[in-house]
């Protein structure tokens, strides 16, 4: 693959801080939450990039920033090398036709009052791309793509008449009906059982193969990311700690947090040759007094009490494609 040639999406030191709203009467102010801290990433055309991290690590936040559901507090987002960080008006509308999102909860992401046909055809109406008869054709085509056959039977159904897996496939159909370049899929299978998840995985990887759609696939499971993704980024408390080809990350994890995630996989260590990395502390350490320290310091067994507590690690290149933010890596 011709790397770094033309990334579809490039994000450069993107940050997001949630500041607590000041309400009258509450004198104690809670801390602002740094949901994303200077995250930089390239996503190549036609790849599925996996974003992996624990709960609350900022995965959804990154996805919502990428599709412009939220404003960033610093950094830049480029789509096909065009700066899209501050676009509005017509430019934003054109952007919306190219970038789509699949949400986590299929029970919440479809309007209960609209039929499947109305839901899937809405993007076409908004972007005025076609007449009613071509809309019907397009909707039929995308519904078939996501595995509804015959698609017509589902046109006049309502979300409450579908199963969770079917709803999520409708959500995918809506996301692809405009032929977008880039889709953010935020844990699309976390509410589904294994069979349905597998079906969704297949649909996503088919879309990538046949239509060259690029995906940011958000998940909390390294196993799912390994199955589906070409490259993986691991995020911890808003910091990107490791990124690289999926195989590389699974076989040779460099960051202690990635190792901890691998340890947590139930099926990972059946191979007797592989050992637990055992990088997590049983009880978290106190925060160091200094203002710069490794974000994983409090939980890291391998941390150096001097260096890790006084410096913030930068991304270190371990190979041309693999890098990790840890002093001990490489």
């Amino acid at each position, binding site marked *: 693959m011709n790397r770094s040639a033309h990334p579809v999406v490039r994000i450069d030191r993107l940050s997001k801080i949630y500041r607590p709203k000041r309400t009258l009467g509450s004198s104690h102010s809670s801390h602002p939450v740094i949901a994303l801290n200077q995250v930089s990433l390239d996503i190549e055309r036609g790849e599925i990039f996996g974003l992996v991290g624990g709960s609350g690590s900022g995965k959804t936040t990154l996805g*919502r920033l990428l599709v412009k559901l939220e404003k960033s507090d610093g950094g830049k987002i480029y789509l096909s090398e065009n700066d899209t960080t501050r676009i509005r008006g017509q430019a934003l509308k054109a952007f919306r036709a190219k970038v789509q*999102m699949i949400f986590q909860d299929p029970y*919440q992401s479809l309007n209960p*009052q609209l*039929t499947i046909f*109305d839901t899937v055809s809405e993007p076409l109406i*908004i*972007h005025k791309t076609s007449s*009613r008869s071509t809309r*019907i054709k397009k909707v039929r085509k995308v519904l078939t793509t996501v595995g509804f056959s015959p698609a017509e039977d589902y046109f006049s159904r309502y979300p409450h008449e579908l199963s969770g897996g079917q709803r999520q496939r409708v959500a995918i159909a809506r996301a692809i009906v405009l032929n977008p370049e880039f889709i953010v899929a935020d844990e699309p299978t976390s509410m589904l059982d294994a069979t349905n998840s597998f079906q969704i995985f297949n649909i996503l990887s088919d879309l990538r193969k046949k239509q060259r759609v690029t995906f940011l696939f958000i998940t909390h499971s390294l196993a799912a990311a390994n199955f589906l993704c070409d490259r993986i980024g691991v995020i911890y408390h808003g910091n990107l700690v490791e990124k690289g080809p999926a195989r590389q990350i699974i076989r040779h994890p460099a960051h202690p947090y990635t190792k901890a995630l691998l340890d947590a996989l139930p099926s990972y260590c059946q191979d007797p040759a592989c050992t637990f990395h055992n990088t997590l502390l049983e009880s978290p350490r106190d925060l160091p007094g200094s203002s710069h320290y490794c974000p994983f310091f409090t939980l890291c067994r391998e941390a150096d009490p001097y260096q890790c507590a006084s410096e913030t690690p930068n991304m270190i290149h371990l190979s041309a494609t693999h890098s990790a933010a840890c002093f001990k890596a490489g």
Partner: protein
Amino acid sequence: MPVTSAENTFSAYRSSRFHFLERLKSGWLVYRENLLGRIGLVLLACFACMAAGSFIPPLIDPIYHPMSGVDPLISYSTGPSLRHWLGTDFIGRDIFSQLLTGARIAFIVGVSSAFMSIVVGTIVGMVAGYAGGTTDTILMRAADVVMVMPTLLVILILAALFGQLSIWIIVLLIALFRWPAVARVIRSQTLSLKRRPFVDAARVTGASCFRIIFRHIMPNVLPLALLYMTFRVTSAILIEAALAFLGFGDPGTVSWGMMLQWVWKTGHMFQAPYWLLPPGICISLITLSFYMVGRAMDEVLDPRLRKEKALE
């Protein structure tokens, strides 16, 4: 079975109506469990029959016209008789036909002013809730200002300033003063709806604010708006009756409040119970029945109750 695409186009097109009917049906299943709701509906049906029947008496004989039909043989108030089932008023007009016409006026006043206040309240509530920020603050402060104004008093002052108000002006004024409570309820509903992921999904596809409000939020707040409409009807009928009784009604219409005013003004308050009681009872009953229907609908809209019933 292969289905032709023309048929499918048709079914996709017709679907929203079917869904509406289906929801109506499941709502009805919950509604009919409610005794008060059934009583309310029966009473409303009676009043509706009265309103519809109000056209009949003048057709039988012009002397039964509620406004201009004066019985040539009678020029004072008489009690019930075969010729005048509820008696006549002070110039010999038939009270029964006035009562029927009063039902029609009550429906017109109640439903049209409730409808207008619901339309205004729903739109203001949705816009304020969805837009948030300054728009929200301005609209809600305006709602507060209108809400604390005593409706009856303000309309009385206006009537005193501008002379007799026509019935449609009164309807309009009642609507203008009654939207804030609706706006508040719809706003809070909108606030919770706009956090739902399907609104985010619509934003991601590029939907405008207009589209999100009217296509995605409105269908979800409409049942609540409808519920509030029944309560608005009650208050509109009461306000119109009070205005008419106080002598600020439209002299060209025969409403129940107007009838009460005539009883009082001509000094028949304690002499002619056959004249005083029917409009009084009708006002109480119609407001009561709208209220009961509203309470029963409230139950239908409560999702918890709805689910329990669906499981049975």
